[in-house]
């Protein structure tokens, strides 16, 4: 198929000039922003996102452009996209339980719903997706399945990140068992354990 070859070459040519966009997806609170900060810190020396134990901390897509990652002499330039955590419900009462005023909680809920829509709209425009899961929790959530299903349907390369492995109750093997068709990298975004393995996987996949 000569045309396919030409097409691939052209794509490669344009890719060479354009940075890859890497979307960080997942359920709420899984550590996406902690990971985004870790990657950003490692390669640019600056953090990019706010982290909180209160769910829906990220309520708009946070971008860090042209981050250069080097692995084994190979360099890859990516646009990092820290996505709002995706959920099928947003209950403001949950924020009140964290000590927020009713007004603030309702405002946060409103922003969270907008952020979720924005994150979903981006799904088909990323070049690679990291799907971050909290290794202490049941990985078989509808949000994970919906995110993965949409990425698979569009042939977007996926790396599953089993995060929070520094915690005693972490069971990353559950994630591997739930999604055997994908590669899973076990990390602690907080402590930095195993993130080098993740960089290797990203560079491997970005071609």
């Amino acid at each position, binding site marked *: 198929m000569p045309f396919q070859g030409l097409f691939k070459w052209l794509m490669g040519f344009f890719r060479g000039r354009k940075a890859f966009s890497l979307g960080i997806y997942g359920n709420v609170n899984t550590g996406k922003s902690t990971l985004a900060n870790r990657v950003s810190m490692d390669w640019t020396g600056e953090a990019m996102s706010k982290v909180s134990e209160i769910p829906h901390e990220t309520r708009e897509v946070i971008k860090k452009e042209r981050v250069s990652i080097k692995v084994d002499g190979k360099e890859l330039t990516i646009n990092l996209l820290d996505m709002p955590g995706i959920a*099928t*419900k*947003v209950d403001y009462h949950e924020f009140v339980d964290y000590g927020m005023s009713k007004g603030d909680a309702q405002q946060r809920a409103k922003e969270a719903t907008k952020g*979720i829509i924005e994150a979903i709209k981006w799904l088909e425009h990323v070049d690679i997706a990291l799907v971050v899961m909290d290794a202490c929790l049941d990985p*078989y959530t*509808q949000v994970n399945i919906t995110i993965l299903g*949409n990425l*698979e349907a569009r042939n977007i390369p996926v790396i599953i990140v089993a995060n929070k492995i520094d915690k005693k109750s972490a069971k990353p093997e559950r994630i591997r068992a739930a999604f055997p068709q994908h590669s899973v990298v076990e990390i602690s975004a907080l402590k930095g354990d195993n993130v080098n393995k993740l960089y290797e996987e990203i560079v491997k996949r970005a071609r």
Partner: protein
Amino acid sequence: MAIQFEFISSDTVMGKSSEEKINIIMKSVRKDKILVLEEPLTPAEEKLLIMKTMTAITRDFPGIEVCSLGNTVDDLKSRVIKFLGGKTSGLTVVGPSNLVHQVKRDPNKLRFVAGK
């Protein structure tokens, strides 16, 4: 309070666009019904359902719980099967989250806790 279930057969949604299907679901969920769809939603439809839900959320309606089982990949094979009038296996359950508190699943089983 009594919990109402509604069963939507494949025939009911046959020939309907994704948009129309999601509207049917949202209408029932807003009436505090738990829906069981014989034909599971595709990932693209699930995505649409979440977006529609986000625009519908208010103080009194915090969102939904949804669970799809089985063949949800909208691949060519399942599209051909559907086109020929056949059914792909699986199902989707959707309910308002203030009624359906928890959905637990594993590859072939689904369990949910409902009540007010």
